């Protein structure tokens, strides 16, 4: 009898199983454990994390570290993934010519067109000359409070000045508008009101409550207001685009006004297949990139055009991997790429009210091969550290399947999907055949990156939280509405800082999301990110391992690893695969561990089988 530990080092989690193993018997499992992976998978930094988890698991099993006779390490999924995102377009306002934003409460409603004028020029006590006799748009800086501004404007209106609308720096739009004898549109909370040029033709639009601007988000609408030629109309398209969906907006026509939507040279990617090479421009979008990739597969390496964004990004990944693996740059080969399109809010350069415009970006996940050598080094260091024999215990795909097969109700032939932070892996075991397996770029970290960019979040950790927790809206001081529309009441009032906010339900705790996004928007972005990365890659992986590339030939699919722990992904996958007539669900390793610990458990089972064969 001996005591054996199986250790699975993942990109983010290290899992352990401990069992008593005797000749000819199936292993008797004593305990399991898991903890954070320390450092990049496959490096000596992993040791401290492994030791921590081993210490915890041995304690649970009621034994000491020195009772371990053998430690088995997974023969690493030979992949490391990385993700990056490049914006493909950007909007630059070279001469301030638009203001578009969503202040909480703009004043009045309607459209006004006129020459921009400072409010002091309408104040008979202050202005040096005659009142203007043409239609005007009045600019009100913060140092004019709403009563004084309303007073000046009322007198100017009574004196016959054609005031058509206003642009206000403070949060006073409604207050000024309410105090005038007629209803005029006022855009307020325009932070850099001093940047609005004077004596220029401008148009202000405030939509009725619950609606968005119509005229200024329509290129022909702007052309009508400013009498533009067809050529000039072409130039205002980026303005109109940036104003779509906003409740209030200003467009100013300056002689040099020039808003550009320009394409950043994002560069091209060269896929080097075993038979041929193909180039594809990053600008052409994710579908084109993935189609090109499919045509050159199997892939032997990828190059980015040097001196461009994508070139820099691919070289960064290669450099990181070269550092980790201590290989030369030329020996680091990229084995898979996943491209995903996304819409990213970007601050408009040269905007007046901190406007954002939605730009197109492409996210790329890439994956490189590592080798057995890496894990052998980890095994050696670990052996020195704990003074116990450490061996590599079989390829990860095989051991994961052996672990998954401890799930009740499952049988061979079986395929598994093992998703983590860096890659989506799939493996297929058929009677009497070697295990087929595949590793694809793009998994949990890619989802987080998409959420972070599409919602314009500053911190990766916040996006990570959004990925793994359901949402709710705090509707009153005493109740919240969960994203499935169910309502939860509380005896004790909630913290007033949560009121009206979209929150994450993390166990018993509520964490507000510091953004203006609605619950629906956050939820859509989250689910779409999972669909475009995890679902797509799961299907892609199953296609690769299926006999003749057809998923319908599979019978059982088990989800193991972190994918299985996600609160919605297993259901999304099961739903998707039902269409192919496959039994798909979350594994339940050793009948009670759920989707976790498959590889660690499989390492021990594999060891026992080998012992039996040897005997």
């Amino acid at each position: 009898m001996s005591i054996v530990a199986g250790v699975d080092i993942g990109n983010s989690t290290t899992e352990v199983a401990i069992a008593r193993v005797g000749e000819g018997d199936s292993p008797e499992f004593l305990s399991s454990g898991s903890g954070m992976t320390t450092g990049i998978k496959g490096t000596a930094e992993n040791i401290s994390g492994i030791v921590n988890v081993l210490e915890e698991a041995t304690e649970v099993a009621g034994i000491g570290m020195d009772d371990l006779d053998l430690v088995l390490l997974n023969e690493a999924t030979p992949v490391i993934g990385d993700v990056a995102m490049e914006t493909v377009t950007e909007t630059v306002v070279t001469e301030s010519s638009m203001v578009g934003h969503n202040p909480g409460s703009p004043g009045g409603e309607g459209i006004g067109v006129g020459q921009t004028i400072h409010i002091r020029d309408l104040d008979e006590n202050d202005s040096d000359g005659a009142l203007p006799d043409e239609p005007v748009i009045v600019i009100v800086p913060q140092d004019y409070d709403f009563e004084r501004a309303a007073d000046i404007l009322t007198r100017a209106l009574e004196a016959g000045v054609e005031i058509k609308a206003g642009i206000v720096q403070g949060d006073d739009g409604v207050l000024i508008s309410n105090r005038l004898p007629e209803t005029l549109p006022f855009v307020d909370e325009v932070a850099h009101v001093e940047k609005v040029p004077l004596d220029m033709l401008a148009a202000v639009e405030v939509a009725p409550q619950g609606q968005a601007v119509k005229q200024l988000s329509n290129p022909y609408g702007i052309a009508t207001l400013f009498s533009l030629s067809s050529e000039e109309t072409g130039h205002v398209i980026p303005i109109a685009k940036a104003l779509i969906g906003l409740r209030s907006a200003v467009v100013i026509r300056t002689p040099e006004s020039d808003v550009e939507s320009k394409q950043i040279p994002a560069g091209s990617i060269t896929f080097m297949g075993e038979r041929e090479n193909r180039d594809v421009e990053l600008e052409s979008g994710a579908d084109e990139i993935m189609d090109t990739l499919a045509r050159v597969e199997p892939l032997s390496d990828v190059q980015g055009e040097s001196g461009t964004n994508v070139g820099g990004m691919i070289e960064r990944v290669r450099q990181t991997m070269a550092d980790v693996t201590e290989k030369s740059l030329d020996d680091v080969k990229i084995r898979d790429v996943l491209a995903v399109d996304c819409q990213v809010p970007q601050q408009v350069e040269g905007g007046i009210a901190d406007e954002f415009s939605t730009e197109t970006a492409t996210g790329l996940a890439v994956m490189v091969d590592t080798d057995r050598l890496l894990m052998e080094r980890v095994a050696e260091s670990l052996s020195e550290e704990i003074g116990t024999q450490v061996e590599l215990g079989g390829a990860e795909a095989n051991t994961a399947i052996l672990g998954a097969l401890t799930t009740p109700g499952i049988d061979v032939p079986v395929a598994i999907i093992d998703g983590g932070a860096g890659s989506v892996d799939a493996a297929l075991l058929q009677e009497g055949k070697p295990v087929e397996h595949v590793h694809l770029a793009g998994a949990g970290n890619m989802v987080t990156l998409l959420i972070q960019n599409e919602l314009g979040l500053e911190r990766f950790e916040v996006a990570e939280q959004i990925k793994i927790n359901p949402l709710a809206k705090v509707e009153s001081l005493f109740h919240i509405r969960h994203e499935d529309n169910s309502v939860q009441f509380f005896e004790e009032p909630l913290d007033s800082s949560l009121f009206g906010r979209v929150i994450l339900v993390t166990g018993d705790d509520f964490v507000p999301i510091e953004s203006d996004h609605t619950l629906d928007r956050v939820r859509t972005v989250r689910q779409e990110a999972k669909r475009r990365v995890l679902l797509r890659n799961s299907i892609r992986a199953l296609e690769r391992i299926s006999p003749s590339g057809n998923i319908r030939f599979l019978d059982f699919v088990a989800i193991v690893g972190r994918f299985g722990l996600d609160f919605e992904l297993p259901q999304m996958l099961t739903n998707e695969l039902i269409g192919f007539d496959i039994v798909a669900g979350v594994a339940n390793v050793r009948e009670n561990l759920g989707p976790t610990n498959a590889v660690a458990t499989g390492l021990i089972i594999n060891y026992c089988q080998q012992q039996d064969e040897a005997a």
Partner: protein
Amino acid sequence: MTHEDENPDRPAIHVSLAPEADESFYKWVAVGAEEEGIPCRLEPADETDETDVAALAHAAAQNSRLDVGVGIASTQVAVHERHMPAERPVILSKVEEDHARQVCRSAGANAARLVIGTPLRLDDDP
């Protein structure tokens, strides 16, 4: 106070002044609520000589058909909601000479936000 709502049955945020409070504070509370588009009305406090600003606000909230009340004392302003425990106002701010206007306006805006259901702007408070 041209935008005050005089009809006692119309839904409005109720605002009560403590006897010693500066009456001009009401105007700024009203301005804050007006910018958010919610009516508010000055309601006389009960005869009981209420000096606790939270209790004042709570009593105002009980009578408001929008369930929200504001209490103003000489040095404090409180925003309350009908179902909250009386001693736990939603917001309690100090009113000091130099920024009394902003504090009262912010209290009015937040009272309105409680009605609308949008997040409160708590960082405005000194």
